[in-house]
Structures are given as C-alpha cells and as structure tokens.
C-alpha cells in the first residue's frame, strides 16, 4: 500500500489515487478528522458534496463539515444547533441588558438635568 495515502483512503483501507478527492483536505497526520466526518456523513455523501462545489471552496467546506460533525459527535441530540440556540440566548440577554442600561442612562440624564435646573434656581 502507498505509504502516502491520505487519511480518508487509509481509513477506508483503499488505494489513494492521484486525483483522490479527499487527499488535499485529509492529510495522513490527522486521521480523526476524516473518521469523525465519515461517522456522521459517510464517505460517499462527502465525496458527492465536494464534487458539487468549486475546487477553491472545498477546503472551507471540509472545515465546516468537520466542525458540524464534531459538534454532532459531542452532542448527538442537538449538534451545532445547540450552539446556535446558546448564541441566540446570549444575544437576547445582552439586548435586554442593553435596553435596561440605556433606560438607566435616560433616567440619570434626566436627574442630572433636574439637578442643574435646581442649582440654577
């Protein structure tokens, strides 16, 4: 077997052809990356997905697939949707706090103006 097989072909126990669609994105130094993606999506689905997008975007696609697969392995119920939900909760909390702080500023400014008027009189 070719010792320079990519991580995908090594995992799939097959010869790594010169035009292997996986080899640019799954170096043999990182076997877990493909293992995780394969577990969630399957090699065939990932290959089809990569074939349908331009070559220059495939690296980014593999990274995002890897991220989502990792999220799904860590959290089989919610995957990365759990992160979306937590971020949305954080946004709502921060918006509420922002609105409250802006209201406090309005009150403080009103008090300050009243104090100035009182001092003037």
């Amino acid at each position: 077997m070719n010792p320079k097989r990519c991580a995908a072909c090594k995992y799939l126990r097959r010869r790594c052809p010169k035009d292997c669609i996986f080899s640019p994105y799954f170096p043999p130094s990182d076997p877990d990356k493909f293992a995780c993606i394969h577990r969630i999506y399957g090699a065939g689905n990932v290959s089809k997905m990569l074939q349908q997008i331009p070559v220059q975007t495939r690296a980014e696609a593999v990274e995002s697939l890897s991220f989502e697969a990792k999220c799904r392995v860590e959290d089989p119920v919610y995957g990365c949707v759990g992160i979306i939900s937590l971020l949305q909760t954080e946004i709502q909390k921060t918006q509420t706090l922002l609105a409250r702080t802006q209201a406090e500023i309005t009150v403080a400014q009103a008090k300050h103006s009243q104090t100035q008027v009182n001092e003037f009189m």
Partner: protein
Amino acid sequence: MSSSASPSSSCGGGPCGACKFLRRKCVAGCIFAPYFDSEQGAAHFAAVHKVFGASNVSKLLQHVPEHKRADAVVSICFEAQARLRDPIYGCVSHIVSLQQQVVSLQTELSYVQAHLATLELPQPPPAPVTSSGSPPPLSILDLPTITPSLYELSPIFEPMSSTWTMQQQPRPFDHLFDVPSSSTIGGSSELQALARDFLHGANSS
C-alpha cells in the same frame, strides 16, 4: 402538517415519509416513522438523506434516548436544510453571524455601561469657564475590536458543549420553537412556522 404517531406505534396508516422516499416497506417499529409523516415528512427526509444518508441517521437515532429523538430529528433536519442552502458553510455561517452579533452587542453594552458610569459619578461643582471641564466623551473606537475568524469557534464549542451536558439547561428547542419535549417534528404548525422563519433568517444572515 398532521401530528405523527406516538414513538411506539407501527405504520398502520401507510408508509412514513422516510420509507415513502426510500420506496420501501414501512415496518412496525420503523425508527423514522414517528418523526417523518407521510405528507411533508418525505420532503424533510429527502434533505436529511442527501446530506447524512438514511443509515447514518438511523444509527444516530439509535444512539439517542427515545425521548430525545424528536429533538435530534429537528436538529438534523435543520442542519441538512442549511447544508443544502449553503453547500460550503452549512449552518456554520449562521453560527459565525450570531457570534459576530454577540460581540457587537457586548461591545455596545460595554460602551453604554461606561457612559452610565460617567453619569453616575459625583459631578464636580460648575466652573466659571467651561472650556474643557468635562472628560472627553467615550468613543466606540476606543474599545478593542474583536474580529472572530470563521473557525475560531472552539472556545464557543468546548465550554458550551460542557456547559450543555453538565448543567440542567433548558432544551434549545424550548427556546427556539417553544414546544414541549414530547412533541414530534410534525406535531405543530407553529413549530413549522418558527422553523421556517429560523431557516429563512439563517439563510439571509
């Protein structure tokens, strides 16, 4: 969309959406039947099948407790739809967009809180000549900028994941879709409308 059957029922009323799509006999105890009804379930399953594959989803669901499978199916459908809409980034683009919103809001909050702090400080007595008696107003440009890159998400991923599993947080879908834990994907038109809005919002962000 009509409600789906309970998790323990068989496919007495015809094949479920998944088996309809796969053109196979829907057996009693079909793992997909409670979550993919025969009407719109087939369309949802088509997306899931294209991205994940039927056998992978089946294995995923088998490893999830039964009372959590409805939520798992909803999240899998969401990810599949997001990936089909954006084959390069999937729902990662939505995560990055939300992360940027969080950073922007927190920056704005810091600025506003600092402004409030200056207002609440005791005011010095008024000077006769007010050329530059008050401190210069804070500018948002004074605050550090944080520009997260697309894949610097592990700080969000790791602590949130451990927080999620270690603490008794409300389910994400309680917040996202406001449905009880026993609901199924076909159980509520409100769920569908919210899911549609969520997906449309994810698509435009």
